[in-house]
């Protein structure tokens, strides 16, 4: 019988947690985990980290490995949310999914962060991950490619598409915001 690796020693795990909590937290939020769910999601991720840390081969950066765990977790949450919305066909769930309902309301994108997340929510998930790694976390090409599990050229190609999508989506959201403001302006003028 194969023995499973011993769990990570407590002191070193705590140190890892302190060093990388913000990165995990931010990655999960940018990958679409709602603010209401972020604490649970962080706990879930670090539980996996705790269990799998002895298997981590320190050839690359720990953050690339952590990001893979975050991506898988965020993707699983989205799948479960989509399963619910398909079954129930309820508009509430269609909107709730894994995002705050507010993100889909074009009238409240005053806050820059909510605009950012609204844009990412409309992006292809794989492009979203690439965009986060390069543009938010500032990873180098090789680091991001490793985290994405892609050849370097493919990672750059995905980044290019993600950048184009980001600009186009932000523009669309802004146009929608302007259109939705017009009725408000008309009412205010009366």
């Amino acid at each position, binding site marked *: 019988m194969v023995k499973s690796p011993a769990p990570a020693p407590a002191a070193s795990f705590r140190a890892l947690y302190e060093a990388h909590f913000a990165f995990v937290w931010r990655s999960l939020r940018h990958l679409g985990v709602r603010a*209401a769910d972020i*604490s649970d999601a962080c706990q879930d991720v670090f539980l996996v980290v705790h269990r*799998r840390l002895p298997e981590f081969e320190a050839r690359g950066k720990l953050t690339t490995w952590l990001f893979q765990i975050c991506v898988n977790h965020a993707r699983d949450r989205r799948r479960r949310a989509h399963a*619910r919305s*398909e079954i129930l066909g309820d508009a509430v769930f269609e909107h*709730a999914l894994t995002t705050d309902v507010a993100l889909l309301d074009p009238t409240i994108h005053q806050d820059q962060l909510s605009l950012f997340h609204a844009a990412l929510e409309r992006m292809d998930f794989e492009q979203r991950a690439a965009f986060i790694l390069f543009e938010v976390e500032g990873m180098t090409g090789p680091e991001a490619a490793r985290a994405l*599990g892609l050849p370097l050229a493919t990672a750059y190609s995905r980044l290019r598409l993600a950048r184009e999508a980001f600009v186009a989506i932000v523009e669309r959201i802004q146009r929608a915001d302007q259109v939705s403001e017009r009725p408000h302006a008309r009412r205010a003028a009366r």
Partner: protein
Amino acid sequence: MDTKSWAKGLPPRARQALEAARQMRPAAGESESVWAGLTDKLPVASAATTTSTASGGITALLLLKPVGAGVLLGFITAGSVSLLQPSVPSPPETLARGRAVHSVAEPGGPLPGSLVATARSASLARDSSSPRRLAQPVPSAEPAATVAPPLSPSGPSAAAFPTDAPPSTLPPNAVLLESNRVARVRALLQQDRLGEVLNELAELDRLFAVGVLRQERDALRVEGLLRSGDRAAAHDAALRFLARYPHSPHGAAVERALR
């Protein structure tokens, strides 16, 4: 083009949005708060040597230890339920104090034996959060059997999954199984095949005592009873539902059964 150059060329709002994302940080104290909940769920040996657990943490450890791998299903299940309750603190916080273990399972009792087997097999699938590349699985990180199949846009066909297997032999993709069966219940409701609705829900209670879609099933039961004309049973089921899920998004619909 490097990141700096590209960001400089962005339209103002896009650039500001990106900058806001780069500056985003967790709130003060959030790290400690998450850690406190995490230590309640860590294996006993690790938890004992980390920071002291909150009250009830020892109770949680005693409750969770026998379930072993089922822990992962428990709080992921609860985490999934929390998707439908955006205004409620997520159940895993209470799971850490042991109470949600009972609320997720049949009320008043420990986790049934069949659940343990279900939990273990499902937890292997839920361990898809283990590190693997986006484009391809990491061969050494986990065995292939632990990877749950992705959802296809139209959903897996009912024939792809055994729908009458006892809990101990359920495949790891229990969530998909349950969702298929719940979809069937909705279809039966729409066709007014109410007797079959209630039978199917009873069967789902047996197969998925702790299911991700337990709340939805309970709401469908209220509707099924109401439409079948059994107002007394619908009334009782609605009261139980509202007591068990006080902040459910189905609450308004279930309350109508009480009028």
